[in-house]
């Protein structure tokens, strides 16, 4: 009887252990690693200087002298340098009448370049990709760009593919969110995240002040990121995702309409950037940090901050600066969306960051401009090229997008990084002594204009 009882206990125990093993095995495969990434760099013939930007504005018949001055002032003080890239149609003078093909060709150039390079470098064949997420905000085509990628690279039939559009400059992290969730369900998978922005079909041909700015600020760029949850590739991986937080302020009307695509009075479609944009951005940023901080900062810092704020509230003193939470206790590097000089300055001020912390974002803005959703990866490339990323470092990515969204995530660096990437031909020139626009003197008379006539946005 004792042996019978022993058997009775043995079978369930072994079954229990088996189930435990399955649960632990499942957990092991739920981590999200970046194997490799490649940012797009067009040829030198696509570089656009401030002088050429002036030419483009001047040849646009719809823009009068006032708009010309306004735009030039914006470009000169934007922090964008002389080596950023523009779509091909601008060089052919066709920006006011782009064809449907222009939009597709612009995307093709990027898709044929970056994806091939990232797959070659990591030795993964396209037919091994299990998940594909493509996000390009401002173009819809049928079949989708994701189908275009599948056709070009002959990917498998049972691939999980998603094509995100309209999600703005923060869509990169939304794509990572999708991959993160799928990795928790599927084991041993490869995922490819392709992010870019379409500029050709979105040139605004009118002269509404709030809408002409978008023409001058966005630049061509894109990135392909190869991710995996295979535990065997952990040694080759570059980064591991620790946490990701998304904040959506669409419920607030002013946040929703501060950055919106619409028609002007003449029926021309453009991207309207409202004056309330910085305020909406700050609000979304603060909300996002409220959720993110407890997840990434050490307990000591959280306690210190809560004690300091509490004591300030109790003492009701307005003197001195507001208590600022010190993010550097939990984060080593800051990867900011290069939305513009004001955005970088604003974040730097609210997080109390030094010039060293803001350097990657500023240099990316200078060298590549605002490439929308893919800008984060260029900033990451700068840090890597400057050999700043060491094993165990924590990297914080922040991005903003229309809607109004603020998405952020924390990556852990898994090994010392310093590969050649898109910055390798110019990294030694950075940081330059002077970031000021060389045409500041030429167009310096703009700075003497009456400030009541113009308002520099954000």
């Amino acid at each position, binding site marked *: 009887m004792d042996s019978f009882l022993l058997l009775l206990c043995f079978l369930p125990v072994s079954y*229990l252990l088996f189930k435990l093993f399955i649960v632990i095995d499942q957990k092991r495969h739920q981590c999200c690693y970046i194997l490799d990434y490649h940012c797009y760099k067009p040829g030198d013939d696509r570089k656009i200087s401030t002088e050429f930007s002036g030419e483009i504005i001047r040849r646009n018949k719809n823009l009068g002298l006032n708009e010309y001055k306004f735009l030039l002032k914006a470009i000169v003080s934007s922090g964008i340098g002389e080596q950023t890239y523009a779509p091909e149609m601008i060089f052919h003078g066709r920006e006011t009448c782009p064809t449907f093909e222009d939009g597709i060709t612009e995307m093709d150039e990027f898709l044929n370049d970056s994806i091939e390079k990232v797959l070659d470098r990591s030795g993964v064949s396209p037919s091994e990709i299990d998940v594909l997420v493509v996000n390009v905000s401002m173009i819809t085509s*049928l079949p989708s760009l*994701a189908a275009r990628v599948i056709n070009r690279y002959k990917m498998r039939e049972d691939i999980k593919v998603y094509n*995100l559009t309209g999600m703005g400059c923060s869509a990169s992290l939304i794509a990572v969110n999708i991959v993160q969730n799928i990795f928790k369900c599927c084991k041993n998978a490869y995922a490819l995240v392709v992010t870019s922005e379409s500029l050709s079909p979105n040139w605004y041909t009118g002269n509404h002040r709030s809408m002409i700015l978008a023409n001058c600020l966005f630049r061509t760029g894109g990135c392909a990121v190869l991710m995996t949850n295979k535990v065997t590739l952990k040694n080759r991986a570059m980064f591991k995702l620790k946490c990701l937080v998304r904040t959506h302020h669409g419920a607030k009307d002013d946040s929703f309409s501060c950055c919106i695509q619409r028609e002007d009075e003449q029926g021309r479609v453009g991207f309207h950037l409202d004056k309330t944009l910085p305020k909406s951005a700050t609000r979304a940023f603060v909300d996002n940090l409220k959720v993110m901080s407890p997840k990434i900062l050490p307990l000591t810092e959280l306690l210190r901050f809560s004690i300091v704020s509490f004591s300030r509230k109790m003492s009701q003193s307005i003197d001195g600066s507001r208590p600022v939470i010190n993010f550097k206790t939990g984060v080593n590097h800051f990867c900011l969306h290069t939305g513009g000089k004001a955005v970088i300055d604003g974040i730097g001020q609210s997080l109390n960051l030094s010039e060293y912390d803001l350097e990657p974002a500023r240099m990316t803005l200078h060298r590549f401009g605002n490439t929308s959703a893919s800008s984060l990866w260029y900033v990451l490339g700068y840090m890597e090229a400057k050999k700043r990323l060491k094993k165990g470092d924590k990297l914080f990515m922040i991005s903003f997008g229309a809607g109004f969204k603020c998405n952020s995530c924390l990556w852990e660096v898994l090994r010392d990084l310093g590969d050649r990437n898109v910055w390798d031909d110019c990294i030694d020139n950075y940081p330059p002594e002077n970031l000021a626009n060389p045409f500041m003197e030429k167009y310096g008379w703009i700075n003497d204009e009456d400030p009541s006539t113009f308002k520099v946005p954000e």
Partner: protein
Amino acid sequence: MPTPTVPEFSKSVKLKYVKLGYQYLVNHILTFLLIPVMLSVALQLVHTSPDDLLALWNSLHFNLVHVACSLFLIVYIATFYFLSRPRTIYLVDYACFKPPCSLRVPFAMCLEHARIILSSQPKSVQFQLRILERSGLGEETALPPAIHYLPPEPNMAAAREEAEMVIFSAMDSLLKKTGLKPKDIDILIVNCSLFSPTPSLSAMVVNKYKLRSNIKSFNLAGMGCSAGLISIDLARDLLQVHPNSNAVIVSTEIITPNCYMGNQRSMLLPNCLFRMGGAAILLSNRWSDKRRAKFRLVHVVRTHKGAEDKAYKCVQQEEDPEGHVGISLSINLMAIAAEALKSNITTIGPLVLPASEQLLFLFALLRRKIFKKKTKAYVPDFKQAFEHFCIHAGGRAVIDELQKNLQLSAEHVEASRMTLHRFGNTSSSSLWYEMSYIEAKGRMKRGDRIWQIAFGSGFKCNSAVWKCNRTIKAPIDDGPWVDCIDRYPVYIPDVVKL
């Protein structure tokens, strides 16, 4: 001549019973094997006396420790078993957009508008007329207000208005039916192929209903008529990861920006077939929703044939020589759809077919491979696996082709044909109009299995398998079919004379 038919009839009847017997035997094989075991146990019990049983009971020494350990173990095992199973996804309810009567486009209006707008191109008018006659559409399909103008005024403001009308109406209806509070929505997925403003349509929904700031929202575009099932797949993956959550999916197609103003024949077809429509669906993995949910999601299978150039190019948005943008459909669309369906069936067959059909398929495959007999490929009888079929109402040809390939009866494809007649091709939401038709007809019983098949540009073929959770009693008091279900099914002639 009656004599030759009678033996054929009796032979077919005999075959039918043989087939039924075979299916019954194979599908219930385990029960059949258990019968001898059960009989022997019963015989043993009959022979033992009550004294023997008492002796057996006393010989098992139970003390408190043993009992407690075993109980503890059983509870432990049960917990782990339930934890390691994938979460069940329930479809709580769904709502379809019902276009107002003022937006109807009867044939007479289509003809009149075509003649006025394309007065310089009589051949295009004739071509569109011929398509309409054979399309299988009825007189009550709807187009958005901007397309009713002469000439149509497809600007962005009108597109946004159409989006608001369709999406908000479907969402309002869903919130009312389910009693869901907007603040309780955890995941939002919106799919619309050809209209994607910035901020996205999902941001528009978040703004209108004041959804939470930590909502996980996604906006899928460009994925064609099968995007509804792609959204369901994404929602399923997300709901596996997030416990105790719900997801709202909005599937629609905004027609306003896609009116084709040129005269290329391959591009005129979508003008005649696509109509206004939209659906909002609520999925949940909460235990509390199990009782009131209508369906349970069993499988989602996706097939993407984009790697083949022919399949990729068969539905393409492009510019014609005159600069008008439209969607061109290639001649071999049906053949490609059949190929994509075959690939999809290869994956879904083993998951849903009963053992009898799988064996038959295996034998047929072996016969072809080993004996190299040039017999036709055996198409499994999917009627054994499903009670209802929802085939995307892409067009009459699609439904005919699938009916032929899957050997379905007229009743199986009735929902698809009637949806095409009443609402036209509403792209990704057509599957939900078809489900609604089956419910309105009172055919949806508990335990019924439904197969939704959708095709899309790329070329994709996606399937979803649902199981009905509770019998849905007709007549239902809301839904897009509420005022016209009694008129259906209608006879749709091959050619309607205009």
